């Protein structure tokens, strides 16, 4: 839909050492550096108060950066007022104008741009068809369901063909099924139209399923910026590991580091293999993290010589597609193992003693 003037890999949106403070005492956003490619779907993910919405508002122009520069297509936009930035935005509560019909809502951005009536009508119709809401042009927002309002808000943000669309937790108010459907719709549209999208959410599943890249925010900083698979499988620090997906952690001390493996002595005494991520030398405290689905309960499947740990089954939960088993491992009573509900899968009985293990690359030694 849009010509790619700057090249696929050149930064379309750039945050350059951006800081934001509201009260002059604390920084809400600390030294933010981020560049977003054209056509990229980037999600800002983080707990509330992590600074992600502030970043979005600075990009939209509703907040000014305290220091640093924000560039859009190479142009600094710090001093451009929001209505001249040409950025589409979808708000958390849709912000559809209640006194206008759906069609009037959609025509609004075209009208203020001085686009003629016939062209306006055509574009509105196309935008409504795009979100499959063609029959609702004459309705008022209050007469629509949450999902329908969501589609209209999306259509309104896209109708004036912006190159960048910002979405501020747009699916927060929808029920689960609708949310999943809309996740798919939004990504489909974004990719079809080739729009650059910055999406803010605190829902990690949403972030994982929709994004090209995810920036995990915490404490005013980007903790990790990576595609979903990398983020999930190779978290760079223990915050990311904890925040994305479920995780088992065991505390210990690094014994020795050999290339891309290290030996960790757990506080409980056992020795395990792990991949060093942000530990540098023997003697460092570390938090090793293993995804529940990467824990192997079948010893035959482990590499020969792999370290195993003794575990006691505390609880077995049948969840349909998977089994969730809670174990006591190295003094940790909340060690979770997830196994696929396959015909050959053993259903572990509470009270039994088993041995568990994992591949060293699945066990990451992170900061303590």
């Amino acid at each position: 839909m849009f010509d790619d003037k700057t090249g696929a890999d050149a930064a379309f949106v750039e945050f350059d050492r951006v800081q934001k403070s509201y009260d002059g005492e604390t920084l809400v956003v600390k030294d933010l550096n981020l560049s977003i490619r054209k056509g990229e779907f980037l999600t800002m993910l983080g707990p509330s108060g992590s600074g992600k919405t502030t970043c979005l508002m600075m990009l939209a122009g509703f907040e000014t950066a305290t220091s640093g520069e924000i560039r859009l297509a190479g142009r600094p936009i710090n001093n451009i007022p929001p209505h001249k930035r040409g950025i589409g935005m979808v708000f958390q509560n849709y912000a559809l104008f209640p006194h206008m019909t759906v069609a009037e809502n959609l025509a609004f951005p075209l009208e203020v741009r001085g686009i003629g009536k016939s062209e306006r009508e055509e574009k509105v119709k196309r935008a409504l068809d795009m979100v499959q809401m063609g029959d609702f042009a004459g309705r008022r927002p209050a007469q629509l369901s949450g999902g329908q309002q969501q589609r209209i808000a999306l259509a309104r943000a896209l109708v004036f063909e912006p190159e960048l669309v910002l979405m501020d937790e747009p699916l927060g108010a929808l029920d689960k099924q609708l949310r999943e459907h809309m996740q798919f719709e939004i990504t489909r549209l974004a990719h079809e139209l080739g729009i650059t999208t910055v999406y803010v959410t605190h829902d990690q599943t949403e972030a994982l399923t929709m994004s090209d890249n995810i920036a995990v925010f915490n404490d005013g900083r980007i903790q990790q910026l990576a595609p979903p698979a990398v983020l999930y499988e190779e978290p760079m620090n223990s915050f990311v590991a904890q925040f994305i997906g479920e995780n088992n952690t065991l505390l210990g001390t690094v014994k020795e580091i050999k290339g891309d493996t290290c030996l960790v002595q757990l506080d409980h005494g056992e020795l395990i293999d792990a991949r060093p991520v942000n530990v540098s030398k023997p003697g460092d405290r570390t938090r090793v993290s293993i995804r529940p689905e990467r824990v192997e309960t079948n010893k035959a499947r482990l590499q020969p010589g792999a370290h195993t740990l003794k575990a006691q089954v505390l609880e077995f939960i049948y969840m349909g597609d998977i089994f969730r088993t809670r174990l006591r491992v190295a003094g940790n009573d909340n060690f979770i193992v997830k196994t696929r509900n396959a015909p050959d899968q053993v259903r572990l009985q509470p009270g039994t003693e088993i041995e568990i293990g994992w591949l060293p690359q699945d066990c990451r030694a992170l900061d303590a």
Partner: protein
Amino acid sequence: MSDTTQTGPMRAADGTPLKKSLARALRRQKLRALMLIAPLLIFILVTFIAPIADMLFRSVENQIVADTLPNTVRALKSWDPETGELPGEPVFAGLAVDLQTAAELKIHTKLGSRLNYESPGISSLFRQSGRKVDDIGKEFQKRFVALHPAWKSGETWAALMGSDEWLEQARGWSRDQGPEPRFRLRKSAANALPRTGEVYLAFARDVQGTGRKAVSAEKPWPVLFTALAQDLGQASPEDIAAIDGPAAPLVQQAAAAISSFEPYSYRDAFIQMDKAWGEIGTWEVIKLYSPRYTPAYFLNAVDLELTPHGIEPAPENERIYLKLFWRTLWMSLLITFCCLALGYPVAWLLANLPSSKSNLLMILVLLPFWTSLLVRTSAWKILLQQQGVINDVLVWLGLIDDANRLVMINNKFGTIVAMTHILLPFMILPLFSVMKTIPPTYLRAAKSLGATPWTAFWRVYFPQSVPGIGAGSILVFILAIGYYITPELVGGTQGVFISNRIAYHISTSLNWGLAAALGSILLAAVLVLYYTYDKIVGIDNVKLG
């Protein structure tokens, strides 16, 4: 189940129609709800609805003429003022009885004041005539007493007019038994002597009302002799003969002698009493206002007059009400507009500032609200008067000359300034409560869609604040149109409202009928405006919070 096959009304499980059984089930609930609001309902009915209804009724009510001068009004019916002649003797005869009775009951001055609204001077005519009118009665008394001295005695009259049953009861009565038994007319006497009967009944009620004396012990009113003379002159011999009771012979003797009475002209007697009775204008007014209901108050309220020759415009120098209505209307609109213009930004700030600052601002808005109205109005007097603060400052700054101090009070300007200030909170509060519900994201959304701040405000924020504007405007306008104290204090003659005139008629001129008519017109005007407003804006769009 069985419902599907059933025809006719739905039935409850016990077979009663469903509607009836539902109504029964809800009745208790409704009754309880009604009982909860009953105190307020009764309070409002008694203190608000009933007085208003009474006042509205007063705007057309005109019972007093027909009630006070029943015989005169009846006789006047056949009189045509267009002939240019004075009414005939029957009218004056009726007036003789009516006015004497009214004077005895001391209600003639009330009638005088009532008619004085329509024709200045009538009040004193009634007052002065009331003092002299019993000369007529005394003349007839002399004649009857000459016929038989028993006519002088109250007992004769009681025996003539009282029913046998009552006479029996009254004979055994003494004061320490409590009130005298209620007087009852003798049927035959009332039938033969209708006017005398009416007057005697009024006499007996008056005596028994004071309770000091027995009816028979009280000296008869002179008017009784006038009425008796008139009745005897007209009564048929059969009716006279039918009178029974102890005083029957006496009245039959008088009836026989009545034709030998020297002719008496009531008209001459009245004209001698006051020349005004000989003027046709006096009678025109009485005839004009003799119906029990009159449009006159309403006509007066719109600068028209009811004259014997139809409805005519009031004299040029008396036309003030239409001007006042018009002034009240446009000044109220102007005040509403000023309140809106000043209040809108304040309400916007209140709704959009952080709560610590908006709370402070809210207190500033409400502070005048908690101050007495009189204090605020007086404060404006101090500020606006010619030797007041504003003028002093302007003179000190050299902006105006000391000799040409601005006149800012006791005129329209003063009223508008003071009332805008006083009514401002009524605009701000509804506006605020509506604006509070408009999320700031709408403005952001509009801006993100490319609207300039002004377009965003005008196209997105303003339309959503319209319900608040509607509520505030209607509140301020309705309060302003009926405002009284402030225009009274700072309005002078040029800045007063119609309500000041209403208050004047209620408390000073005591022309309640006109006050009621003015009030009714004001009420109707507000209702019409409200209706139009509803048609244009839609009352559903009005939000008070």
